[in-house]
């Protein structure tokens, strides 16, 4: 098991290097001289030359990449061009808002998705199943910005039940979490239904049926136990979902998380912050996938056996 964890962890290194290479390339591809961008238009020629040297822009490109990487590893992620606040401070500050929202929507997505998925599979082929499958396609096709706007109109403007923007209290989380969850619930319930039916076709279920066990018993102690991807996988997927949706949903609700920070910085061309956001979010996402993979293997003895871990 430890060997697997180590192997999977080592696997992360080329991915992270790849991410950093992409971000570095994208930042360097921005039209204009980075020194001029940082200094603004009022900078004089000699100051630009000094800053170029300080940033290592006169060195070959691979040396620049190494300097840049070294800065990242030592925590020097640059400063916002607009507020002059350090990027790492901004990221740390906004991260907890995103986490709060993610936890809230993860619980909605996991509960709703598992519930609908199990019912749909249990009643496969029936009217209820058809209806749930229809609703899943329906929810899957709803743009989160439409859901967000409708929620704001109904619950913030018409019945003043929840605030349309802001953060800090539980009531601020309700509408953004709902807007994120509609698609996520469809996603999870679809996966759950598929994996349940997959297991239901296997031999040990036929054996259980031949033994004369009751349907409900077969569902609970044979199929559910084997089919439900370990709950951590679902949680991991819903976290990924919440992170993916954060850009649009946080922006609609002016919710001060990482997603809003990213879209705002892209609109304001605040390059150091954009760079920080991209790196930070991609790293969190890769780490989440790592944890989910490891737990998945850890929790499922069959996979451990198959892969000889």
């Amino acid at each position, binding site marked *: 098991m430890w060997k697997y964890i180590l192997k999977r962890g080592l696997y992360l290194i080329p991915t992270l290097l790849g991410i950093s290479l992409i971000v570095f390339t994208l930042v360097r591809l921005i039209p204009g001289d980075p020194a001029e961008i940082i200094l603004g238009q009022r900078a004089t020629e000699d100051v630009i030359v000094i800053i170029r040297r300080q940033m290592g822009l006169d060195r070959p490109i691979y040396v620049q990449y190494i300097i840049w990487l070294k800065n990242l590893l030592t925590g020097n992620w640059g400063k916002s061009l607009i507020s002059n606040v350090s990027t790492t401070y901004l990221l740390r500050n906004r991260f907890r808002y995103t986490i709060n929202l993610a936890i809230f929507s993860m619980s909605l997505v996991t509960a709703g998705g598992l519930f609908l998925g199990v019912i749909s599979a249990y009643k496969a082929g029936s009217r209820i199943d058809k209806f749930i499958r229809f609703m899943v396609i329906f929810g899957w096709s709803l743009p989160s910005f439409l859901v967000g706007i409708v929620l704001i109109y109904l619950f913030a*403007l018409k019945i003043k039940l929840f605030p349309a923007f802001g953060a800090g209290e539980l009531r601020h989380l309700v509408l953004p979490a709902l807007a994120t969850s509609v698609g996520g619930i469809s996603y999870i319930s679809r996966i759950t239904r598929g994996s349940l039916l997959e297991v239901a076709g296997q031999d040990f279920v036929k054996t259980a049926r031949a033994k004369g066990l009751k349907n409900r018993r077969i569902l609970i102690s044979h199929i559910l136990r084997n089919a439900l991807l370990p709950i951590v996988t679902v949680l991991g997927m819903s976290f990924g979902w919440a992170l993916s949706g954060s850009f649009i949903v946080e922006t609609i609700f002016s919710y001060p998380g990482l997603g809003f920070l990213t879209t705002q910085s892209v609109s304001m061309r605040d390059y150091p912050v954009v760079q920080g956001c991209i790196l930070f979010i991609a790293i969190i996402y890769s780490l989440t996938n790592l944890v989910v993979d490891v737990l998945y293997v850890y929790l499922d003895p069959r996979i451990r056996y198959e892969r000889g871990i």
Partner: protein
Amino acid sequence: MERRNIIGELFKAAKGEPTIIFALSIVFTLILFAAFPQFLAPTGYERVDLANRLVPPGPKYFLGSDFVGRDILSLIIWGSRVALMVTVIPTLISATIGIALGIISGYVGGYVDDAVMRGVDILMSFPGLLLALAIINVLGPGLWNAMWSVTIGRISGYTRLSRSLTFSVKETGYIEYARALGSSRNRIMVRHIFPNILTPIIVQMTFSMPGTLLSVAGLSFLGLGPSPPTPDWGVLMQQSRAYLVYAPWAAVVPGLAIFLVAFSFNTIGETLRDIIDPRRKYLKL
């Protein structure tokens, strides 16, 4: 996997299924709107009427008017051109690149496969719109830039799928037969593998189309897509958001249009999947 006429089977499956008929007619209407907006739209998309701002849906304006008095129905019809474009073009381009990479990776194997799969892993570590935002950060906002940025993010899905499909047909008799006859590697990939893995990929493409529509519309909604005079549903929503209290229809109607198109493509995708894998229909607990 045999080749089949899935379009014909799709129309056959639509018989007696109102949802599928509905989905097909929405797609048909979208194509019609996109082809002939000048004949079908009541007004041009630039006609402003400040005396009739924020008029609710009714006899004068069937779907209401927006904050500068433009007819929303006309904007929806003119906007369907962009909607159809962002649904089809990113899907076609990303599928082409992704399939090529996937077949090469799966058939050639070895270092090539390793390199391609590491690339896919890296592209997949950017959740949601993150990669698109990173690319727009370089290229700047705009319709085509938004489309490119979404296209790049979609390649990895096709690469994975076509790679695993290539594995499944690689060892079958007809490929070995072709190899024994002395067909070149390129010929086997283009003439033998590609046509035989196409059906599941078409299903994936149908599912991916609403995804690209939602992504590009999301970027326009964030103000990173086409700039205002271009008739676009996402832009219309973004502009009308400020008037949500007085005129909810101006923001909701274009959102519903996006939803209807996405829903139709997803329904068609679901139907196609049942057609190529009929076993799915009869699975039971």
